[in-house]
């Protein structure tokens, strides 16, 4: 079953537009939502959660429309917005005391176990936690109310490599039983290489690609050739950089098949993002 289904979501601002966003995510998988800063990741997440009014489109969670079932849907989701810290001067136990009352499904035993596992001290204030610990506390709250989908906006931003790796391992652990899914936005592509099953790539408010990680990477080739060869293939490249020997560029695989003379290599997610950033629309 699709745990999340977004169809033709659009939102127009005076200076930015989200155009026909389509995303779907099945139970038991991790989806990485990538794009450069300002590409529309947070706006998409906020539109999904009714924090921002969508102009058109439909968002369904667990087969239910978000518009008609907002309270029920929110019961089954856990969120975290990267830069938002609330009630930072309050102790974790006080915040938990308030949060737990909102959920009939709250499992106190699980909460205690997770607090212990993540070494979170309930008597500490939220502002005393490191960025990584704050993410863990958000995850603790979400799992304790038995959220089936975690939506995390840039959870790894600002974390050191060790904390990031630890968090990504935790993500994988969380979906092991196949009952939960995670959708997280990031601009750190190495996060996705480590743990994402699906990748959705957004650029200037438009979804470029939404597929499994392997399919995503197989769609493209990084090609290299001479300046003469560039003239022949220029219009088929997503973008390219020239150097004294010729050019390096990104090409969709269907075009590459017509040009076996070009040197090619498999791209990294970084390559795809960087070349798309250079591409003229």
């Amino acid at each position, binding site marked *: 079953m699709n745990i999340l289904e977004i169809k033709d979501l659009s939102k127009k601002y005076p200076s930015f537009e989200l155009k026909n966003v389509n995303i779907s995510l099945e139970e038991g998988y991790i989806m990485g939502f990538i794009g450069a800063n300002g590409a529309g990741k947070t706006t998409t997440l*906020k539109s999904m959660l009714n924090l*921002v*009014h969508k102009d058109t489109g439909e968002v369904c969670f667990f087969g239910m429309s978000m518009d008609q079932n907002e309270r029920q849907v929110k019961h089954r989701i856990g969120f975290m917005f990267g830069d938002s810290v609330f009630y930072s001067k309050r102790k974790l136990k006080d*915040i938990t005391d*308030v949060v737990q009352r909102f959920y009939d499904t709250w499992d106190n035993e699980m909460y205690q176990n997770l607090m212990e596992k993540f070494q979170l001290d309930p008597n500490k204030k939220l502002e005393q936690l490191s960025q990584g610990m704050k993410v863990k506390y958000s995850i603790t709250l979400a799992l304790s109310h038995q959220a089936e989908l975690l939506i995390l906006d840039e959870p790894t931003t600002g974390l050191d490599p060790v904390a990031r790796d630890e968090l990504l391992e935790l993500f994988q652990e969380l979906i092991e039983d196949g009952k939960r899914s995670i959708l997280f936005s990031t601009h750190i592509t190495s996060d996705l290489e480590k743990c994402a099953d699906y990748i959705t790539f957004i650029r200037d408010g438009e979804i470029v690609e939404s597929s499994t990680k392997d399919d995503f990477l197989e769609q493209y080739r990084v090609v290299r050739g001479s300046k003469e060869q560039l003239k022949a293939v220029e219009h088929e490249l997503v973008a390219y950089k020239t150097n004294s020997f010729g050019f390096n560029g990104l090409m969709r695989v269907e075009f590459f098949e017509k040009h076996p003379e070009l040197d090619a290599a498999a791209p990294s997610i970084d390559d795809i993002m960087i070349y798309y950033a250079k591409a003229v629309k």
Partner: protein
Amino acid sequence: MMKQLMYKEFKLSIHKFFFIVPILTGALLLIPQWVFLVAMMYFFWISIPNIYSTYNAQNDLTFCMLMPIKKEDYVKSKIYSVMFLEGLSILFGVVFAILNHLFYGTPNFVLDLNAAFFGVVFIMYGIFNLVFFPEYFKTGYRFGKATIYGNVVAILFALLVEVLVATVPTIQVWMESSNYLWFQIVFLFLGMVLFGVANLIAFIQSKKRFESIDL
């Protein structure tokens, strides 16, 4: 969900000091011969701007929107918590008004501390809420303009009442004479009803405005 939201307001959001303010402002009713409506105005001079700036500082809106609630629940919880604090101010006002009568036993040179006085206070708070909330919920975070507008309208209303009582003998008799106690009690209930109606309209307007904005 409202029970949980109110628990959040009182446990997490509104500092305990603002539950003591009604006692302090109530005690001002012991000042001999004074414009007592001023004492009841301290609520929206002190408590409102402080509570609402704290909401912003603590990122209360984002916190609430992540809970399983709708925008209208959020609006309702804010109106209920202000109504509660206003009720508390009136409650302590009544206690200190009784003490005032016990200590001094003389009429006030402007509006007396009687049932009609608290009817006026209910209307004044209702007017403040009616102006404050719909203006505040145009953004959900800008409280400055909303507080000033609410204050101006509520103060003008209070001024009008005081001037009418001081200058129109019939109104003074009806509002203050012990022969018209029944009218003063009716006026108190009228004030309560108007307070309820004003808050209902404030909720409908605020909900409509808050629903239409992007967060």
